[in-house]
């Protein structure tokens, strides 16, 4: 029994230590955004890597999610004679939930694994130690540019995903359901307007839809950098780090999404 307790104690300590290291890395990487030297070129390079190169996958998932959403909802709404509300349903679902979450999951899979593999390889080939010996803080040089780029690009990708998803809904509602495009876009706007505004002009749905990807961007980049920098055990360790990154970031995105939604629903005034 004491042995079991000791093991449990050690395991708990290990988890707390991991959390502590994770938040220290997060804190440092965010603090270094405002500290010299600035690695502007690295940030731009990472924005290209995280944003531009993820555009294809985000466009595809957004488009087909919007299309399938319109298709499924048309079947249900038809029974009530309410197919004119497809626009409301697609826009609310895409902007509030599916756009941010799907873009986040796609970026976690594509970019998170890439970052973890790159930093993990740098760790096992002593390139991180080399940075240290050359008087460079690896967090400042490697983590902060990736975090900053993700903070900027994940919301941008989400906007693209939302927009393309709503267009996908438009395609299905006009081609399959026979709803005129004008009416579809009118209901999309009605949905945005009916949910209320922040500062009179910013729809509440936009606040929800853009605050989430900001947090998801931080989760993906910090998780990937955390596991990447902590890689041990050669190439096998690199593989494990990438797997851990994708699994952890995906779970965190889904869990944190719930809590952000809960928080925003209690803070924002919905009509």
């Amino acid at each position, binding site marked *: 029994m004491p042995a079991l307790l000791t093991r449990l104690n050690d395991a708990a300590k290990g988890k707390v230590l991991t959390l502590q290291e994770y938040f220290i890395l997060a804190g440092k990487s965010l603090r270094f955004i405002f500290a010299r*030297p600035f690695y502007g070129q690295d940030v731009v390079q990472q924005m290209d890597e995280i944003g531009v190169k993820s555009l294809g996958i985000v466009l595809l998932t957004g488009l087909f999610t919007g299309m399938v959403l319109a298709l499924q909802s048309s079947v249900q709404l038809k029974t009530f004679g309410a197919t004119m509300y497809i626009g409301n349903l697609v826009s609310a679902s895409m902007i509030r939930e599916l756009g941010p979450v799907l873009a986040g999951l796609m970026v976690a899979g594509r970019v998170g694994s890439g970052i973890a593999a790159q930093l993990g*390889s*740098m760790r096992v*080939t*002593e*390139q991180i*130690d*080399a940075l*240290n*010996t*050359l*008087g*460079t*803080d690896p967090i400042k040089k490697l983590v902060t540019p990736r975090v900053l780029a993700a903070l900027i690009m994940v919301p941008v990708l989400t906007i693209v995903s939302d927009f393309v998803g709503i267009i996908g809904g438009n395609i299905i509602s006009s081609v399959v359901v026979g709803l005129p495009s004008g009416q579809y876009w009118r209901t999309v706007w009605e949905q945005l307007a009916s949910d209320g505004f922040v500062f009179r002009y910013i729809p509440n749905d936009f606040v929800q839809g853009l605050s989430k990807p900001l947090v998801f961007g931080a989760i993906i980049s910090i998780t990937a950098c955390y596991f990447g920098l902590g890689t041990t055990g050669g190439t096998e360790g690199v593989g494990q780090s990438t797997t851990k990154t994708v699994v952890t970031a995906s779970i965190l995105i889904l869990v944190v999404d719930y809590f952000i939604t809960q928080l925003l629903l209690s803070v924002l005034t919905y009509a």
Partner: protein
Amino acid sequence: MPDRTKRDARHQPEAVRRAIRTELAADDIAKRAERAKHPRAARDPSIPVVALDHVSLGFDVPILEDISFRTLAGHTLCIVGESGTGKSTILKLILRLLVPDAGRVLIDGEDITPLSFEEALIVRQKMGMVFQGAALFDSMTVFENVAYPLREHTDLGEDEIEDRVREKLTFVDLDPDRVMEQLPSELSGGMRKRVGVARGMANNPEIMLYDEPTSGLDPLTTATITQLIMKLQRELGVTSLVVSHDIRSVFRMASQVALLQNRRIVFCGTPEEMTASEDSYIRDFLGGA
């Protein structure tokens, strides 16, 4: 040994020697002015550049116990021993990538163990490190690798940086025009090591650390790298610490040899003293090597 030194000096291209002299005269003016303000400016030659004072380190198990040695300016200390005895760990302690559990690590007489991470980054600028696998940044070209410390820590313009990179690559016997735009993956093992040396010395450090600089290299390339380390010590007066398994190379370049056994230094002296030793472990080690 003196004959070899003369022979190497004769073979040294005049352009390179001139470049080194110019560099020593001009390049370090700012650094020297800075040092002149520092209390260490009037350095006592008897003060060791690198010293470990009763250092112990362990994680789950003890790795190093009661390690002490001192290296004077311009000397080359080679650390030898069986695999897994903590040789590379000593270099990490000197770089302050690790902090000892007990004892002190002194650089230029200053204890670096209590320094913060940011302060340690500044101290590391005095040192150049050549890693076992060279640890070149594989996303950067050779030029960018060697230029990296200059871009990070100096205000040199791009033209000056290019001149400096060319000098360093020439110093390590590489043709700058041929290799500068190549990626590390396009180089041979020996060339990668030499680029690693060029990057380590780009900022004109006072101390060079080498982790297994000749491992995995053929005998000819091993001899080239060994000569390069000697050239650095001889012509630039750099203090060197070399971790190596290659006893032949060690005996060629070392002013002092430290032998590690079971986490402790069991011998520290000149190569001649080591070969003359009657200690059975030392004799076995040299015989085996």
